[in-house]
């Protein structure tokens, strides 16, 4: 018991005297997660909207695949990406292994299906009358899609936040492709794993607290946004 207490009190003092190394780790974590998420959103959101609006053959299969990939085991993603990016792999010439770019790629692969699938379900949840209404008012196809996206925005934002949650908490894939190199590819989660291994529980706990605080912050923001969007509140 006292050991947990000690870890916590020392962790708190570490948080209050944020040193450069800790800050660097937090910053890199946020950078990798945000950019990975951004890529996933840039690719996944249009796909989700497309799947929600258009009718075509094989659509059902594609959606099933996406839903399956939502639960893709990160280590498997990491492994495949490693084999691709390895110098003896097909993409070795890119020299991306053990860089933050490789971590971003891994994160976007993990976040992409979540963003796409949840965007899709948000979009099909929008009343078709919305699309028709914007069309009657003279909207182009793109403008109709944007109107539908706007109606689905709260569902889409939830999807993005869910993807962010997955991405910031991720260890397996980024450990494999990033290598947890101090100062280059060490992020919060991989640092927690390492420090726990080394028995530096204070640092691990400090990072854990920060990670949870960030998640809490993001979810609170989401909650406020959702509440604002709820009918009758504004």
């Amino acid at each position, binding site marked *: 018991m006292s050991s947990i207490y000690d870890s916590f009190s020392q962790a708190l003092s570490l948080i209050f005297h944020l040193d450069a190394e800790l800050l660097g780790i937090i910053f890199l974590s946020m*950078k990798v997660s945000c*950019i990975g998420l*951004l*890529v996933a959103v*840039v690719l996944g959101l249009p796909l989700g909207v497309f799947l929600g609006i258009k009718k075509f053959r094989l659509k059902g299969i594609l959606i099933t695949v996406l839903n399956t990939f939502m639960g893709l085991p990160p280590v498997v993603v990491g492994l495949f990406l490693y084999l691709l990016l*390895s*110098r*003896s792999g097909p993409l*070795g*010439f890119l*020299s*991306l*292994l*053990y*860089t*933050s*770019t490789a971590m*971003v790629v891994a994160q976007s692969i993990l976040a992409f299906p979540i963003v796409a699938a949840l965007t899709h379900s948000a979009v099909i949840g929008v009343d078709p009358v919305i699309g028709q209404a914007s069309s009657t008012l003279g909207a182009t196809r793109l403008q109709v899609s*944007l109107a539908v996206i706007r109606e689905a925005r709260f569902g889409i934002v939830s999807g993005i936040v869910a993807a962010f949650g997955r991405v910031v908490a991720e260890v397996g894939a980024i450990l494999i492709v990033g*290598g*947890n*190199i*101090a100062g*280059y590819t060490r992020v919060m989660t991989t640092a927690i794993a*390492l420090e726990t*291994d*080394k*028995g530096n529980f204070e640092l691990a706990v400090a990072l854990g607290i920060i990670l949870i605080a960030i998640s809490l912050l993001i979810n609170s923001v989401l909650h406020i946004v959702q509440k604002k969007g709820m009918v009758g509140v504004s």
Partner: protein
Amino acid sequence: MFRKAVFCLFLVLCAVVVRPVQGFAATEIICSSTTSTDNSGLFGYILPLFEKKTGIKVKVVALGTGAAIEMGKRGDADVAFVHAKEQELKAVKEGFFVNRHDVMYNDFVIIGPVDDPARIRGMKSASEAFKKIAAAGKFVSRGDKSGTNTKELQLWKMVGIEPKGQAWYIEAGQGMEKTQRVADEKRAYTLTDRGTWLATKDKDRLAMAILVEGDPMLFNQYGVMAVNPARFKGVKYKEAMEFVDWLISKEGQQTIASFKDKNGNQLFFPDAK
């Protein structure tokens, strides 16, 4: 506004993707090593000195011993710094690595209760001592697949004893310091590395002593080797060799010897030839 936001995000994205590419201009090499080496803090001490001298940044990827060598074999490292001499020599023979050199060693010691119930004090052979412990003592194992644990299991195998499940064999599943404390409480023997022992024996008031040391079996030899550039085009062989040469140079060796843990004990003993 939506489009503006997307555009801004896109710019940020480009900036980040481009950054690591610029990084190639400065020379960076990747060194595969083991978790225990990295955790000792040695790299944090010597690498800044090396970088200051040569301008080469060494990025350490720490893995298990096997994985660290494997990583070099796939060409994903430029240099490997590990402690598994047999496996290293085999990989060199297979043509994956070149220019392997001994760099340093640390050693393990067998510690136990000062009154030494199994009567192993001063024995020259670690494996013989293990036999006596199995017969007349208790043993606390780290039981966590660490390097120390691996070395211990190797010794049990040598003497043909299967310790798992025996009444006298306790698996702590803890770090080295905790394991020593457990051994102290249980009046048992354990295998520890000299660095941890020196750092903690007074602090933890251990009623224990070093009973067996100096058996070559207990030496942990560290070696360094460059990934064979003939096998992998992208390998930064020149910079890797600068690192290898520095480690085995007089300066590199002195640097290793001057690395102390937080209690001021020397952890590694340079022995490059």
